[in-house]
């Protein structure tokens, strides 16, 4: 029922690096998928289109399942292609979420996902896949537990291998005996700490006049728990009402949340995602989530070019906006840009010396990449008190009717800020623990997909 066929990893040229888990199928089965994928990709590139995320592969034979073909779910990460053929009537999201989990684990094991890394550690990856998939059923997916069974590649192990010593890494002999599936037993830490990172991102679409067409704030709480024993935690928010549409880590007791709006859980050890949520607009009524950034933009298209101007202002009084990047796609044929960025540096509050920090340019920098036809304007920071920085300029295009994109993207970060104003009130540690852990909460607000039309 819920079963996938296997997993294939392709290098950027479409050659297989890893192809695992097709014992049920004829040997041609994976190559059939690879070929179909490669030709579909070539065609898509030639036609300047994007591939549908699920491709239909006619496998002719009725391999393992009961379909006369198979769906091929694929994603691209870091230039590599990850394919999951689905030979049965299965939820494609199942394949995608498996891939997601698989990629997370891979990242955790390999650090960086590169072709070389994968080639060097193929034995570990095979073993991982063996553990994660049993005939297409996801088996052990928690990184925590996988690490007990499949040891991650470490320098130490490499040294040992080179020295010819093996068999030393006898892992825990009693895996999965823990009563709590996500936590291994007998965790010990010399210092007991737990950190919560509240990360929020805002997606927004802004029209010509600067009005918000649609916007939503998505938040997630990442947790890094380094607590000994089996701590039972109670996390209280001062304003739990802003949390809407929560998606919980399985460790959270759903009923307690429904009843008291308190998060009660025994955390896994290490890093994990505790919660995802959508924030309810803080202001009541129809007011939408405001963008902390005011934008005035104008674009005039002329034959063989165009003129533009963008003015930014911060609506946030408490904190500076940081790492602001505005990217504008100037359309096919755009060859060069001439622009000036103007601005003035006025520090927020008392932190005046920051203004003189190295490399700071009033109004920021812009650059144009003629290959991608993208103009980027970068500002290291922006505060509400300074005169609004502007970028004015023009571009030249080889097309007589240039077609720059009708909207541009903005990205930014705000440290120690939360769009929804979510606040942690209190964290209580219960259970069989005798220590007082160190607790930390950090907030980060950033832009998700923000598009401004002009």
């Amino acid at each position, binding site marked *: *029922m*819920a079963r996938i066929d296997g997993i294939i990893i392709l290098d950027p040229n479409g050659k*297989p690096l890893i*192809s695992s888990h097709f*014992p049920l199928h004829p040997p041609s089965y994976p190559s059939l998928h690879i070929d179909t994928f490669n030709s579909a990709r070539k065609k898509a590139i030639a036609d300047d289109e*994007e591939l*549908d*995320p*699920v491709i*239909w592969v006619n496998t002719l034979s009725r391999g393992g399942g*009961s*379909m*006369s*073909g198979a769906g091929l*779910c694929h994603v691209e990460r870091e230039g590599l292609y990850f394919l999951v053929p*689905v030979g049965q*009537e299965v*939820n*494609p*999201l*199942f394949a*995608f*979420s*498996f891939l997601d989990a698989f990629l997370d684990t891979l990242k955790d094991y390999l650090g960086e996902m590169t072709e070389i890394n994968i080639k060097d550690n*193929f*034995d570990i990856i*095979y*073993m991982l896949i*063996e553990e994660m998939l049993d*005939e297409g*059923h*996801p*088996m*052990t997916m*928690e990184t925590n537990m996988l690490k007990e*069974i499949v040891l991650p590649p470490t320098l130490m192990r490499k040294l040992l291998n080179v020295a010819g010593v*093996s*068999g030393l*890494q*006898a*892992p825990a*002999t*009693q*895996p*999965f*005996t823990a009563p709590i*599936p996500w936590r291994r037993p007998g965790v010990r830490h010399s210092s007991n700490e737990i950190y919560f990172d509240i990360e929020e991102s805002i997606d927004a*679409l802004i*029209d010509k006049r600067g009005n918000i067409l*649609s916007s939503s704030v998505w938040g997630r709480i990442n947790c890094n728990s380094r607590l000994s024993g089996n701590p039972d935690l109670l996390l209280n928010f001062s304003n739990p009402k802003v949390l*809407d549409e*929560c*998606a919980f880590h*399985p460790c959270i007791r759903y009923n307690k949340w429904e009843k008291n709006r308190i998060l009660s859980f025994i955390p896994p050890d290490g890093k994990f*995602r505790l919660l995802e949520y*959508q924030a309810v607009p803080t202001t009541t009524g129809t007011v939408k989530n405001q963008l902390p950034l005011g934008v005035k933009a104008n674009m005039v298209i002329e034959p063989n070019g165009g003129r533009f101007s963008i003015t930014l202002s911060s609506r946030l009084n408490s904190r500076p906006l940081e790492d602001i990047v505005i990217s504008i796609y100037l359309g096919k044929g755009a060859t060069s840009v001439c622009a000036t960025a103007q601005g003035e540096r006025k520090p927020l509050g008392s932190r005046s010396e920051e203004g003189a920090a190295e490399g700071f340019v009033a109004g920021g920098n812009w650059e144009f990449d003629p290959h991608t036809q993208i103009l980027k304007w970068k500002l290291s920071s922006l505060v509400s008190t300074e005169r609004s920085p502007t970028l004015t300029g023009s571009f030249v295009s080889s097309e007589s009717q240039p077609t720059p994109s*009708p*909207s541009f993207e903005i990205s930014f970060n705000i440290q120690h800020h939360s769009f929804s104003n979510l606040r942690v009130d209190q964290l209580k540690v219960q259970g069989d623990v005798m220590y007082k852990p160190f607790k930390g909460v950090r907030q980060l607000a950033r832009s*998700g997909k923000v*598009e401004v039309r002009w």
Partner: protein
Amino acid sequence: MAMAPPRKGENYELRQQLNSEYRDKRADAIKRVIANHTIGKDCSGLFPDVVKNMQTDDLEQKKLVYLYLMNYAKTQPELVILAVNTFVKDTADPNPLVRALAIRTMSILRAEKILDYLASPLSRCLKDDNPYVRKTAALCVAKVFDLKPELCVEYGFVETLRDLIGDGNPMVVANAVAALADIYEASLNLPDTPPTSPGRSSPPPSSKPNPELFIIDPPTLTKLLVALNECSEWGRIAILNTLARYKALDEKESEHICERVMPQFQHVNAAVVLGAVKVIMIHMKAVTREDLIKSLTRKMAPPLVTLISSPPEVQWVALRNINLLLQKRPDILANEMRVFFCKYNDPPYVKVEKLDIMVRLASEKNVDTLLGELKEYASEVDVDFVRKAVRAVGQVAIKIDEAAERCVGVLMELIETRVSYVVQEAVIVIKDIFRKYPHSYEGIIPTLCANLEELDEPEAKASLIWIIGEYAEKIENADELLGTFLESFKEESYPVQLQTLTAIVKLFLKKPDESQTIVQKVLQAATKDCDSADVRDRAYIYWRLLSSDPAAAKSVVLAVRPPISLPQTTVAPAILEELLAEVSSLASVYHKPAATFIGKGRLGAEEMQRRALEPEEENAREKALQTVVAGQQAENLLDFDADDEPQPSSAGGSQSLSMLGNGGISSSTISNVAKSTNPLDELMDLFSTASMTTPAAQPVAPKSTVSGIQGLQDDRQDTNTTHDAFAGLTGLGSPPQGLGNGNGVTSPAQSQGQAQQRGGAQDDLLGLF
């Protein structure tokens, strides 16, 4: 002739190393073997050498050897037996990892010989202390069942599995459920299963496998619902799939299931969310309690919206499913249209889905916002998307009467942009608006005509010509405009030719004095110079009509057409029901029932047709496909929108009129006037006219009146599809009264047979009129 293994080459080297006395050399060699296998080199020759390395304390090395065995066991079945002892020994190893690994590998090898050795270790492992071993063993049962169902029955593995649903460890529960589900599916496919009573009792102890092996009885259901909240996301998916299959005993139980499944909406994993949506959609059917239904629909929307913020792949799958759900329950996302606004940087496949959903959500309340958005999209660069956006404006106009005027306004603005493809698409869309709201927006006709030169696509041209013909009496220089098309008649594509012909005839009927010459010209051109049978045949019909009875011609050609409407669904209701049961699966992404691509391949497609036939509506798509395959290539230009109304658009055009030459009307004719329940029914045009003028004919028409003459076969290009396509044209040679008892009925029975056979497909043919 047996070949001695070569003494050099990589495999030789590897063999040496595999047999080396040094452990690290052997370990290294195994890795290299696996690496070679990955890049597609054949390493099956090394089988005996690799197997020797099985007995080792190094777990990692063991795993790699096992991996090798799994890959090559199939090619070397007789050698696998060498490994059996080690396997059996390993299943009793003190290390649970080794136990699990051994039992799993044994079941994956799929070798009959091994299976006999597997049974007793497996039953031991199913009761192992360690949950890791138990959960691995649980899945093994499914694999054994696949190979040798009798074995499972004999050893009572399936019963053990059922007990495992009550296991304390949620991971074991999840795997037990997954295995049982697999067994259930496999048992459905067993060739000679004895028919079993649909009772809920446990299977009788027979050696024959029973498809009822995995029955969910109320106690199991309770276990499943408890496990649902405890196991991993993957286990939840398996349980939800099983719940979707479960037939609730009564409404109470359905309610219970819905209530217990609802919390799954809060899961991080999108697959769980969609799985839960599916279960609720299925069990909701039995729920009648108003407040529960309300709360279910209310809670269903937000998690779906949350999926929209996922990566594009997930988004796309979610959107496809949302699109489907909306067809059944349009209210669930009524207030969420903004979420679906397209971003410029969304991948095209996401944009198209969003657009479709937005039109579905359009209502009087949000129509202004929507139109603003659509206008925005129309200024983008992606031609395909822009066209779809323009088309969406037209769909909104047809869907919401009150907004039609605003939509026309937007379209006029778009035409002013003078971007060629925007203008062309807008013209096509306006044609549809005219069909829905005749005589409402005649004011814009001059603007449309001003853009005549810009049109270069057949569909746009044909649309504009249709408009000119329709409103010929209001357009002063209609004859001039049509004259320009007449000049290039021979070069135009067939759809444009057909439209030109019809429009000029309309013009003549409306303003007979001024257009005598032009109509003669077009009839001449169409009958003499045109190589399309359809165009020529239609010209002959008109000619005959005009010459014998202009009044009849008028009533036929200038008939009042029924307005078109936007269908709520893109798939037939019966299929929709089926798809909803498959929400979250591949079927829902393709919007085709699983039967069409699962199982019997092409047979599946026939099955789909059969099902589609049940609802009279929109069944024609498949038929159309058939016809297309049969070699038809014309286009039905007045078809509202092939994307939205799957109808035999392409088939229609060519089928509709295949009159045969030599002046005589010579074809079997039938009027299979579709039941007027079909909202897409454009072909009514012609018939409604006929019946208007001749009331007597009306009762006859809907019943596939057959009358006609067997034609000159040699003149037909595709007898198959044409000669029954003649809906109601009998009256053409004589006044409409002739309908039903026309001249010389030769083969009514034959034609009637064909008529019934193809009837559905023809519902739309006559849209051309």
